[in-house]
């Protein structure tokens, strides 16, 4: 049984009643715990890396519990290695299932990438070739995860710096096939689209046109840095350590035209600014969402 047939996956076109609002959220960082509890900022929701909450107890759990009581939560994994050739780490999957039971997140997502190998965990989202063999393999892993967690997951498009001679399927098509075969949803990271587009010389807007938007339930925006590749051409690094760039905001607007208003997350994972700095980015995402919502209302009013 590959496809997850729980209630959530009944029809991929109908969005499940997600307690995550169609508003801007941010990645939750320890540096902001105190501020959030003291000031209860007007932010729609938070996202965390579950791996950071896999200790037995202590302040991380105390803060997360307090914040979870007040805000919707999404878990965004970085350690499952669903693109890995090796079998999934059942122990890690067990830890994840326990965390899902404890915090009841509204969404769980992971990356189309691999990070674990025979020698251990490499702590980076490594790329994989897209072909029939890897498609069947990754789909199998997604099915296993959804069965173990008893819920649907979202899979995120990666930022990549290399491609493989061995790839025979376009990334957008690969993701669409994964969603169709397994009933999983998709997380569209528009910064990753901009980064990969620049790095591999494709048009990000055209990529979005091909993206299977009907499966998208969450969008990420983030900052990147610019370097040079071996030919002296721009090579963007998905560094999550800077404000969101203008072309990425434009891609967010474009994506929301297709998806309608859905949760948008600002990721900022290193050189983390004070809360107000993060909130400025979230406010901009919120404005873009708001403009999209207003537009939708006008449309409905006109066609009513």
């Amino acid at each position, binding site marked *: 049984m590959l496809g997850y047939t729980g209630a959530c996956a009944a029809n991929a076109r109908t969005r499940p009643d997600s307690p995550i609002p169609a508003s801007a959220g941010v990645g939750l960082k320890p540096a902001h715990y105190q501020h959030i509890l003291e000031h209860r900022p007007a932010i729609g929701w938070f996202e965390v890396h579950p*791996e*950071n909450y*896999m*200790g*037995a*107890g*202590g*302040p*991380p759990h*105390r803060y997360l519990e307090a914040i979870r009581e007040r805000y919707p939560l999404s878990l965004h994994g*970085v*350690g*499952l*290695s669903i693109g*890995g*050739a*090796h079998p999934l*780490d059942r*122990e*890690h999957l067990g*830890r994840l299932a326990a965390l899902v039971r404890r915090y009841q997140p509204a969404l769980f997502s992971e990356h189309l990438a*691999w*990070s*674990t*190998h*025979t*020698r*251990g*965990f*490499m*702590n*980076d989202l*490594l790329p*994989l*070739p897209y072909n029939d*063999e*890897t498609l069947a*393999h990754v789909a199998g892993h997604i099915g296993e995860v959804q069965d173990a967690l008893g819920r649907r997951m979202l899979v995120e498009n990666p930022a990549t*710096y*290399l*491609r*493989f*001679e*061995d790839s025979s399927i376009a990334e957008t098509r690969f993701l669409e096939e994964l969603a169709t075969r397994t009933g999983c949803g998709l997380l569209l990271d528009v910064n990753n689209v901009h980064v990969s587009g620049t*790095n*591999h*010389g494709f048009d990000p807007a055209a990529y979005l046109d091909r993206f299977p938007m009907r499966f998208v339930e969450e969008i990420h925006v983030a900052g990147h840095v610019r*370097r*040079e*590749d*071996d*030919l002296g*051409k721009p*090579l963007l*690094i998905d560094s999550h350590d800077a404000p969101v760039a203008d072309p990425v905001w434009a891609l967010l607007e474009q994506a929301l035209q297709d998806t309608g208003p859905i949760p948008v997350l600002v990721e900022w994972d290193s050189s983390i600014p004070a809360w107000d700095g993060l909130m400025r980015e979230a406010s901009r995402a919120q404005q873009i969402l708001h403009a999209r919502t207003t537009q939708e209302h006008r449309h409905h009013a006109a066609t009513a």
Partner: protein
Amino acid sequence: MPRLLDTQNDFAAAVRDPESALPPGLLGRAREVPSLRFGVYRNNVGSSLVDAVAANYPTVQRLVGTQFFRAMVQVYVGNALPETPVLIHYGATFPEFVAAFEPAQRLPYLADVARIDWAWHQAYHAAEAQPLAPEQFATIPADELAKRRMLLHPSVDALSSPWPALSIWHTNRHDETVKPIDLRSGGEDTLVCRPAHEVGVWHLPAGGADFLHALAGQTTLSEATRHTAERTPDFDLTRTLQALLASGAFTGIR
């Protein structure tokens, strides 16, 4: 997954060895050898793992300075990848690595400072438990007490150093300007525990770490006392018990 497995074997080996040739089958923008592109992955893996260890050893980093610290951790990371994606468990063997790391030999106390950092980090993430109130302990008659065994708090750890490791740790961890510590001031025993929200780090009387380890091995209080006194003739049981009770190191008595 023979083909994918081969691809990932080659990729992983090349990521881990910066001197090696790139694996076959990779494409950059055109026909170039995509060394800088592959270097992004090498750098991401290497520096993120160094960051992960650094997060768990802030005092060691301050003590030796960022440059030396990162160079040292890079060697450590090169030897051993994390066994799981839960990076809060990564770096448990770093103190032993530091003890054997040739360029750090002129700081013989460094490994013990690293052990205190690790104990602090473990206590921070340990399971929650309600500490035993000192009054509860006081209600048990002394002759009865000798036969009892103590239940230790999940966050507790103790270590003994032939150096003033705790004084060195403390000033490097907390003081704006690091105070000079006289290395001839002798060895120190350290207790680490998180009875509630905050991790506490305390001095224990000489032999205190031995005593706690004996109790952790499920010996009775009298056995633990005898064991400790054999190695530390002037072991002060009363002061040690007071320190352990006050810090919340116990959760019960059996």
